[in-house]
């Protein structure tokens, strides 16, 4: 390594991977994935991993992704809830890894919830 730029490049690469270890701040966007038996059976783990990958790829340090228990509507699993401070919770259901990536780009990054994946749209 011969330059400060190279040092910063390593820093930025690894820092994203270490974000998980920061304490959950109050103004973070919380992403909760239902990981009870019903969620796991319906395929929640690939969804969770896709979310983690995408958030890391985009270096979103204000996003906290965690598992949660059964939300109670097992027929709509895998369920992902997004809680933004000061806003109403958005619940996405019947998620797939592909849908998860779109939720990250549209909802978390650009602030536009993906209406067609929400429980309101799917449950009609």
């Amino acid at each position, binding site marked *: *390594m*011969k*330059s*400060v730029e190279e*040092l910063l490049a*390593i*820093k930025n*690469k*690894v*820092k994203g*991977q*270490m974000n*998980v*270890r920061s*304490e*959950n701040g109050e103004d973070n966007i919380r992403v909760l994935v239902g*990981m*009870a*038996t019903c969620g*796991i059976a319906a395929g929640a*783990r690939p969804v*969770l*991993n896709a979310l*983690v*990958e995408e958030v*890391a*790829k985009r270096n979103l340090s204000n996003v*906290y*992704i*965690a*598992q*949660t*228990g059964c939300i109670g509507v097992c027929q709509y699993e895998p369920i992902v809830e997004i809680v933004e401070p000061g806003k109403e919770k958005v619940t996405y259901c019947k998620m797939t890894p592909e849908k998860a990536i779109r939720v990250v780009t549209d909802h978390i990054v650009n602030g536009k919830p993906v209406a067609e994946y929400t429980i309101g749209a799917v449950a009609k």
Partner: protein
Amino acid sequence: MYRAHVLVCGGTGCTSSHSPEIIDALNEELKAKGLENEVQVVRTGCFGLCSNGPIMIVYPEGCFYSQVKVEDVPEIVEEHLLKGRIVKRLLYSETLTQEEIKPLNQTNFYKKQRRVALRNCGVIDPENIEEYIAVDGYQALAKCLTELTPEDVIKIVSDSGLRGRGGGGFPTGRKWSFTAANKADQKYVVCNADEGDPGAFMDRSVLEGDPHCIIEAMAICGYATGATEGYVYVRAEYPIAVKRLEKAIEDAKAYGLLGKNIFDSGFDFDLHVRLGAGAFVCGEETALMTSIEGNRGEPRPRPPYPAVSGLFAKPTTENNVETFANIPQIVLNGPEFFNTIGTETSKGTKVFALGGKINNTGLVEIPMGTTLREIVEDIGGGIPNGRKFKAAQTGGPSGGCIPEKFLDTPMDYDSLLKIGAMVGSGGLIIMDDTSCMVDIAKFFLKFTVDESCGKCTPCRVGTRRLLEILEKITDGKGTMEDLDTMEALCYYIKDNSLCGLGQTAPNPVLSSYRHFKEEYIAHVRDKKCPAGVCKNLVQITIDPEKCKGCSACSRKCPVGAISGKIKEPFVIDQSKCIKCGVCIETCRFDAISRK
């Protein structure tokens, strides 16, 4: 990309309570469940709360699991990591509240702490240089080499108000400027990691948890003072620290952060590790350098000071591990970051190794000026078994004791000197009312007698004679004149010894005599040990009124000193009794006491 990180403490404390086995079991169990690519297991440095080890923190939730056993691992993996259900029974009790899991930094132990030197301990993997870089590592060095002149660096360190953390408290910036001012073909930087005080483990924890910050700081010091080579002198008794430091140096060389032409600035810096062979005197700066040179570790007279003629007779800057650990943060964030913490004359934070009769044994880093009461009662969680605080020993065998009436003394260099104690390297041993102060002084003196290198007579012979007087007192054979001789001898040793070891060796005696004179007098005049520790001054007796004659004590007595008939009062044969106290603990009728 890992969705969850499991941080397991790999410090010496938790390692001795089987954290390596826990890490192995975790990796195995994760593999069995197919989670090895989703969950990362990280072996970190010390978290500080050693009494609750082995410690494990699971992120993103930030769950603090304490006293984890290998058998608990399958449950943690199955419940927490697979299904997202926190294993509440293993949570550190204070973090478990009714509604939610309390973050660690809001617990009593961590709330009043401010981590500067220990900032990365328990946060990063010390064996992974990239994790250190991710938390701003080596940026302070980059800033020095690319933006600042050596004079700028020394000014920043001077302005920060940082003083030596090894015990002396000498202003670090000034020390660096002395070496910088001397012209020589070769200069050196030395890191003193020969942490010898009984009960102190601050430096070990920094080296184990964040070795790269020492490397970075030494390179900065080299740049500021004009040195191109450095030595870290570590005790051989710290195998984990040595291993991690060596790995860190190797990695830093591979990344071009040590070696020739660092950051293309033309600055070269190389680092070597030297192991100490367990001599306490080698913690003294001149003895340490003599030892690095390959000679028997003995101090040499000062002047000349190391800044003029140090290692291999070249100008040398020597600092303690904790002093160095503060440097990268000071350079990176500016002197104001540091000099706004602490008191008027003692800036920044200090790490203390909290031990003895205290609930939360471990490592704490507090702003200078925090009172002893806050450390003992809030951070330390008080004295176990509802006993009463008696005194705290700071600075180990070179320091003094702080009695209860000074509990509200702010912990800083000058306030502690005023009451006859010292900040020292940071060992803080808490004593309760079952500790005899004369016995404690004797304990520390025994240590210095063993460790005196023998080069100068006041220390070699003086400490030995002093110990003999103390032994006479604790044996109940002391006279009032002995106390006067003892005090005079203390001052004689202090004034005439060659190095810091002898000059400070009488401190435990002097300070305990100053604050607990009545206890010394009780030993001499009344032939009594008020705390019931000194064996020759106590008798264990059975109260015939209370004794039911159950024989429980006589069955437990290891030397067969108790005899009697069942259902009649038993008696202790004083000539056989070794005063171990087992009978007192055994008796269910409170009939046996120590007087």
